[in-house]
């Protein structure tokens, strides 16, 4: 018995937690260790990023090899003699071992070479530089609408749970799930373009203004501002408003619903009662105490929503004749234009990876528990 006690006391004295609870301020050595840890952290983030991207390349490469589309036939046509076919095949490097082909593919992509598009005759990289900004522009405007309206709506609904306001906001959210995109797009065009003429019709810009400003970023709104051409800016804005609003409505519905449920969860927490006990005004209870902790999960929701929009909505881009990546990818698929398909897939995949990493980094910034 005594021995057990002695062992107990020995263990207690060795317990690392029995050191004084108030450790001295960090020594310089500890700070250096901290800096080194941060560097290692950044390094591991970059390595993880590189590996993920390599995985993405492997997937697009494999897709390119397993689909029943023969890239050689796409170039020489299906009536070419066997000798021509074989020669083209060798020129394209398709007779080499798969691993060598993959290495070559990675090398090409690293140099920004995504191959030629058979349907447009341009390099895929040039095509993407043209179509992606169109999607980027409308998606960014859409997500801005979704966040700027959806988040306050969700917060408002949660802070007045069960009220008429809450009911109305929930109905709006439900509509965002229930209404098909093509219907909303068409009705929007019929009402705001065909009937009221509040906005311009399909396309990014009137033909008259096409090519009026030098494409520096590819984003018409920004290019026209850079060129100082307000007329072009106004025209581009009147074209983009409706598709952006339709996209914004769908992300608003999703973001608003998620915000509402995150907020309800926070508002039932004990620390909210604590804030009220302190006499903190209700707006501050809601925005400072309940909203601040949900910024972290909201980032994921907004990030995923934005990534979804950047993929390019085929429906919306088709209805609004929007020359974006969704349209490009669909056309490429229908024309068996493999280089264009793979290039677009690569871009979409890279966006997902990028946005995910970004939300990871923002997490650490915003949540003290994740640091």
């Amino acid at each position: 018995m005594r021995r057990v006690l002695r062992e107990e006391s020995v263990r207690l004295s060795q317990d690392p937690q029995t050191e004084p609870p108030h450790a001295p301020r960090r020594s310089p050595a500890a700070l250096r260790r901290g800096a080194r840890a941060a560097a290692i952290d950044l390094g591991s983030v970059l390595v993880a990023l590189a590996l993920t991207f390599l995985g993405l390349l492997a997937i697009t490469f494999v897709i390119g090899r397993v689909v029943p589309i023969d890239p050689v036939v796409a170039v020489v046509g299906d009536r070419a003699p066997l000798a021509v076919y074989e020669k083209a095949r060798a020129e394209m490097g398709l007779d080499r071992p798969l691993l060598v082909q993959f290495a070559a593919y990675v090398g090409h992509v690293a140099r920004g070479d995504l191959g030629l598009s058979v349907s447009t005759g341009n390099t895929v990289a040039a095509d993407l530089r043209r179509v992606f900004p169109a999607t980027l522009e409308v998606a960014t405007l859409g997500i801005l609408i979704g966040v700027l309206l959806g988040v306050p709506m969700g917060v408002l609904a949660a802070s007045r749970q069960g009220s008429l306001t809450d009911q109305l906001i929930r109905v709006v959210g439900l509509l965002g799930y229930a209404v098909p995109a093509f219907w909303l797009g068409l009705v929007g065009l019929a009402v705001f373009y065909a009937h009221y003429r509040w906005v311009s019709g399909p396309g990014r810009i009137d033909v008259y203004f096409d090519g009026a400003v030098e494409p520096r970023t590819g984003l018409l709104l920004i290019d026209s501002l850079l060129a100082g051409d307000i007329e072009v800016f106004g025209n581009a804005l009147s074209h983009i408003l409706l598709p952006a609003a339709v996209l914004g409505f769908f992300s608003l519905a999703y973001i608003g619903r998620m915000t509402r449920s995150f907020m309800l969860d926070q508002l039932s927490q004990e620390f909210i009662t604590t804030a009220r006990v302190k006499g903190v005004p209700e707006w501050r209870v809601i925005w400072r105490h309940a909203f601040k902790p949900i910024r972290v999960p909201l980032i994921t929701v907004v990030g995923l929503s934005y990534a979804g929009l950047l993929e390019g909505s085929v429906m919306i881009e088709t209805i609004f004749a929007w020359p974006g990546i969704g349209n490009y990818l669909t056309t490429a698929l229908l024309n068996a234009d493999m280089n264009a398909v793979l290039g677009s897939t690569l871009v979409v995949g890279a966006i997902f990876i990028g946005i995910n990493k970004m939300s990871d980094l923002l997490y650490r910034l915003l949540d003290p528990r994740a640091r």
Partner: protein
Amino acid sequence: MTAPLLDIENLRVTFPTSTGPVDVVRGLSFALGRERLGIVGESGSGKSMTGRAILRLVRPPGRVTADRLHFDGIDLLAQSPRRMRLIRGARISMVMQDPKFSLNPVMTIGAQIAEAVLTHERVSRVDLHSRVVAMLEAVRIDDPDRVAALYPHEVSGGMGQRVMIAMMLIPQPDVLIADEPTSALDGSVQAQVLDIINEQITSKGMGLILISHDLNMVASYCERILVMYRGEVVEECRADALADARHPYTRGLLAAMPHIDETRDELPVLDRRAWTTP
């Protein structure tokens, strides 16, 4: 005796349920001066709801009614939400149960304590900082500058609860409601936290309502005790006269308490038929 700080008569807290309204507090009456009052009772006896009802923090659909709910001559039930906020924290405050859940996880400890001051007063930044530091020292936190910069997840439960006490006492309220302030803490730090509350209350001459299910604890820190059962006060007595309690429920609770110098094979179980009328 001077006019009481809290004067409560026939306090009722009602919640609607699918089988009709249920009173979780039914007709509670008591007065509190600058003294320490303990409220004991088992889980669900309505003791926590009493604390929240005084602060008018019972969430809808719960409803609070009373013949009288006065604090320092102010009719609490007649106050607008805005006026009620001026009373909360500044004049009546409450220490909550578990610092793990009752401190905001994404605000530093210093910011949370400072907020309690800034809600009610305009203070310069320098004064604010020195007051926060002094308050943390008063609840026996060494190195308060460092602790003020920490987040709640970086401190222990005992320290978290001391932070909670500091936060609730810094605006210098007249009444403190301590709702099971130690039930989430280890036995070794429970006494320390209670001693701090006690020291602060007596030195500032405040009124304390200590809510707990621990009869012994309440008896050793309070002058008066209310025993609640199913939303009603079944016994009211002085703490040192607890042994003479008459109500069968209190007697049952006392009998069920083990003592260190006795040998019992079995602790008695409460026989609820003794006091509930069929």
